[in-house]
């Protein structure tokens, strides 16, 4: 283990805020006793299993479903079809309106559901369902000038679909130094280790209460969706997400598997488990939409930007508008009197895209930071100096002052640690046998998001405390950090604090998404604990047996419109080697330096930063999903085909941060850290590949089929 700042003699006391505390549930996880959604210890008698049937046409209608053969198989309890499935209430998210009509909006859309006594029987039954379709010609090919493309009012996150300041075209045309480049990021998939899975049962004589164990990033959102769909008061639904094996955004919204599980349980009167097979995931739980970027940077000869234009084309499905907000970072990063950002989205016969770690920032910063590198080369200027030259005083898009912004400090600290000062800027001159080596840098940014939350804190007579909040720990260490926040606010030892999370029986809380969990839940926990401390101060004598409880609701404080632009920033550095025989690119070193407010737990924070960087390495070099033009689905159907980095791809990865004090965030002074690690990594690697080879590649990932021909 690498020593961290927190191991020094100045380290915070064990367990308090800022301490290097190990995950509280770590032992449960490594010993296999932590239970995930469909592996609850007590599978009730009579539990049934469901297996969905995906559509095999890219566009059309289901004309008939023949279930006879499936129903004749042993153990089969039911086959739900668009004709027989229970009717649902209005689905705010159209991807949840499963088996409600005969339309097939994309290949892989669920058109039937088999329910049987065992998973194997359910799978066999699903395979025996015969679906007839009226297929229609499909269009799955995204192009920048697609005739159906339009500029949406808003992109993901409620960001404006387009923005304009000054006269960006004229300023670009008049600029002495110009970069006009097109970049392409392919579709990508989240592929968490634990697939989307749910276990549903209806309790009571008349099935009046629905309990669902779901692998979700936000149980409250799942409950709200189920309440609408099944016409129930939220109080009649319990959703539990105690341990979640990753999500990366794909479990941030309720997904069709949980609706199907509840539907099947109601239809059969049996508890039902449904774990989506890996091969079905790519079509039904979201993906990062492909993005086509055009970047235009106009600069003075001293590097001062005069025009920044970032135009993005992307796709969405026919049933739901999701717009990857990849042009938004250009509104945050660099000062320029003239600027244009826009998104153009085309609905196609494709699966519905959604959140994947740092939606918007990850692909957008790949393009912007690659273009900045191109500009630095064109200017003959160090890329760090170029960024420093264009550091804005206020946020360029909004004009708001920053609550804190230490990008320059990150770049300089990273340069020192990485040994950037010794860098020879000439591209393509470092050869070791067949290998060319190079280094690259890119900036990173991610917004500070926060959502209202509630929480409670209880003091027990024995001197211990229980903190309750429906937070979700998707593997991040949220449970641990919340205990630290509580211990800090209570002035108690960590061992005296018990944290309960992951259930809608607990005080309502927002999802684990947008790097906002710790801020949102932690704020409420902090407030509840502070209120409890006040109550305890007023209390005299022994505590009652039920203890003393205080609650908090941050709706007002967390919803207040901030008077500041609030973002985390970072700098990524990469060293790569490019094999000129094969076009294979290997990363030798990755370094990230972050300014993300106060770091609450160095151990879990480092894990988030490093994990994000590894995912960024995958985005740069190995990961892509191919939209099959003939069949309309993603070709990569399993983890043998969808290449997340293997251990052998992941070299020396290091993450550091600078101390950042920001009083305009939340009581902990923290910014989100779950996503920024991915943001600058692909551009840093791509820029290093240019430095190694002298060749600029603008289409991710940098696999041998792209790199080798470019080297010729």
């Amino acid at each position: 283990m690498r020593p961290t700042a927190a191991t020094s003699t100045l380290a915070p006391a064990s367990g308090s805020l800022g301490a290097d505390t190990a995950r509280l549930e770590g032992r449960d996880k490594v010993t296999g006793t932590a239970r995930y959604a469909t592996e609850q210890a007590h599978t009730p008698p009579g539990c049934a299993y469901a297996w969905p049937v995906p559509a095999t046409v890219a566009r059309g209608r289901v004309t008939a479903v023949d279930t006879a053969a499936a129903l004749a198989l042993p153990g089969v309890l039911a086959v739900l079809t668009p004709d027989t499935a229970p009717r649902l209430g209005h689905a705010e998210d159209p991807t949840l309106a499963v088996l409600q009509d005969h339309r097939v909006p994309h290949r892989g859309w669920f058109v039937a559901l088999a329910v049987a006594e065992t998973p194997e029987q359910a799978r066999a039954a699903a395979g025996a369902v015969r679906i007839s379709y009226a297929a229609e010609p499909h269009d799955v090919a995204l192009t920048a000038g697609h005739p159906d493309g339009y500029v949406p009012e808003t992109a993901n996150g409620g960001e404006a679909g387009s923005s304009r300041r000054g006269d960006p075209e004229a300023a670009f045309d008049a600029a002495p130094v110009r970069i006009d480049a097109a970049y392409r990021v392919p579709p990508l998939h989240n592929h968490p280790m634990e697939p989307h899975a749910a276990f549903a049962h209806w309790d009571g004589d008349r099935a009046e209460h629905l309990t669902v164990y779901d692998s979700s990033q936000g149980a409250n959102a799942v409950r709200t969706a189920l309440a609408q769909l099944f016409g129930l008061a939220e109080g009649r639904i319990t959703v539990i997400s105690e341990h979640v094996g990753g999500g990366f955004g794909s479990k941030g919204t309720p997904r069709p598997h949980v609706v199907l599980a509840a539907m099947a349980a109601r239809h059969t009167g049996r508890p039902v488990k449904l774990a989506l097979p890996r091969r079905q995931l790519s079509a039904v739980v979201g993906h990062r939409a492909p993005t086509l970027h055009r970047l235009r940077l106009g600069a003075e000869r001293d590097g001062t930007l005069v025009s920044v234009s970032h135009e993005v084309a992307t796709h969405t499905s026919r049933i739901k508008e999701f717009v990857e907000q990849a042009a938004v970072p250009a509104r945050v990063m660099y000062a320029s009197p003239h600027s244009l950002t826009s998104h153009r989205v085309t609905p196609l016969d494709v699966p519905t895209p959604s959140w994947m770690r740092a939606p918007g920032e990850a692909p957008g910063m790949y393009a912007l930071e690659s273009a900045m590198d191109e500009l630095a080369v064109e200017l003959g200027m160090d890329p760090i100096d170029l960024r420093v030259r264009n550091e804005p005083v206020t946020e360029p898009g909004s004009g708001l002052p920053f609550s804190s912004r230490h990008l320059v400090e990150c770049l300089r600290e990273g340069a020192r640690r990485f040994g950037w000062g010794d860098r020879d800027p000439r591209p393509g001159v470092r050869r070791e046998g067949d290998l060319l080596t190079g280094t690259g840098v890119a900036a990173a940014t991610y917004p500070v998001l926060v959502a209202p939350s509630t929480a409670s804190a209880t003091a027990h007579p024995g001197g211990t405390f229980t903190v309750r909040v429906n937070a979700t720990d998707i593997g991040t260490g949220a449970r641990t950090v919340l205990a630290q926040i509580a211990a800090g606010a209570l002035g108690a030892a960590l061992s005296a604090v018990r944290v309960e999370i992951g259930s809608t029986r607990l005080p309502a809380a927002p999802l684990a998404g947008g790097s906002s969990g710790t801020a949102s839940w932690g704020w409420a926990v902090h407030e509840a604990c502070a209120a409890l401390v006040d109550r305890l101060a007023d209390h005299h004598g022994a505590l009652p047996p039920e203890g003393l409880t205080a609650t908090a609701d941050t709706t007002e404080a967390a919803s207040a419109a901030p008077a500041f632009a609030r973002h985390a920033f970072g700098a990524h550095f990469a060293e790569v080697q490019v094999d000129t025989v094969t076009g294979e690119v290997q990363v030798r070193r990755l370094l990230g330096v972050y300014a993300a407010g106060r770091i609450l737990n160095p151990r879990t924070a480092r894990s988030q930063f490093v994990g994000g960087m590894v995912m960024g390495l995958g985005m740069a070099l190995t990961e892509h999903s191919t939209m099959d033009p003939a069949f309309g689905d993603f070709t990569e159907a399993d983890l043998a085909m969808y290449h997340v980095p293997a251990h052998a791809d992941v070299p020396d990865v290091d993450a550091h941060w600078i101390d950042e004090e920001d009083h305009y965030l939340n009581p902990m002074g923290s910014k989100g850290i779950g996503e920024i690690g991915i943001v600058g990594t692909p551009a840093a690697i791509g820029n290093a590949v240019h430095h190694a080879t002298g060749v600029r590649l603008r289409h991710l990932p940098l696999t041998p089929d792209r790199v080798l021909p470019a080297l010729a």
Partner: protein
Amino acid sequence: MRPVGYVRARSVEEAAAAHAGHPGARYLAGGTNLVDLMKLGVESPGTLVDVSRLPLDTVEPLPGGGLRIGATVRNSDLAAHPLVRASYPVLSQALLAGASGQLRNIATTGGNLLQRTRCPYFQDPAKPCNKREPGTGCGAREGGHRDHAVLGHSPSCIATHPSDMAVALAALGATVELHGADGARTVPVGQFHRLPGDHPERDTVIGPGELITAVVLPEAPAGLPSAYRKARDRASYAFALASVAAVLEVADGVVRQVGIAFGGLAHRPWRAERAEAALLGAAPTGENIARAVDAELDRAEPLRDNAFKVPLARNLARRVLTGLAGPAARP
């Protein structure tokens, strides 16, 4: 759900008898590919005849030189075997370039040869595939085929064979020992796998019920130069975009022995006979090596999206052969 019969064989004869006695039977060894295909509905054997515990798990030096590798020797054991590492480094390197540590620990020598293409259209029963379902067409030709064949493909099939090990065996001139109803026979590894032609459903020349019992390596002196090199999308656990296995012995300034095979380019490990013929007896100069490799790859017929494989294979072969030739290759 279809029930599957299971028979555990204790001898080769018993295995063959069980296979013959159960129509639709398949031999099961490590199961790393067959079981996956059963889950996908690509394979649906009526009976599995488990041959993983047959007494075929040893590597034996042969009296006249060479090695006899039992069919159930695990990939990881074979890669680590001292005799293999000493005399056949190309084989050890190829094995270690394949799959993952966990898979190599269970996958067998015979099973590795018989693994099936990872073409995504073959693996998806909802799509056309002449290999899986003859006559339905080839989904890959119009769909995604960046990873597919550039040599020896046919209108009916453009799949590649996924094995790394088999490429090394082809370059080494190994032979496969088969046991069938009519007794034992041997087939050179280079002829064991077929080109697709009009019958892509047949991967190999193995007959119904025939069982691989061993692979025999020809004699090789310790230190015989050989090497395997593979290009792939990630550094581990990825199939070859292209690979090359080569054996090259130089004496008195000329090539005395040569074996070259490509992986990732064709429906079978591609024995580069033209390149071998061009090099045998010639001085292994960089120029001669380049000419020999080109003589082989000039036959390539890349598809819409995989033209990169030809220069990739060319580079790999040149680099491996010049490396094996040592100083003789230098201008």
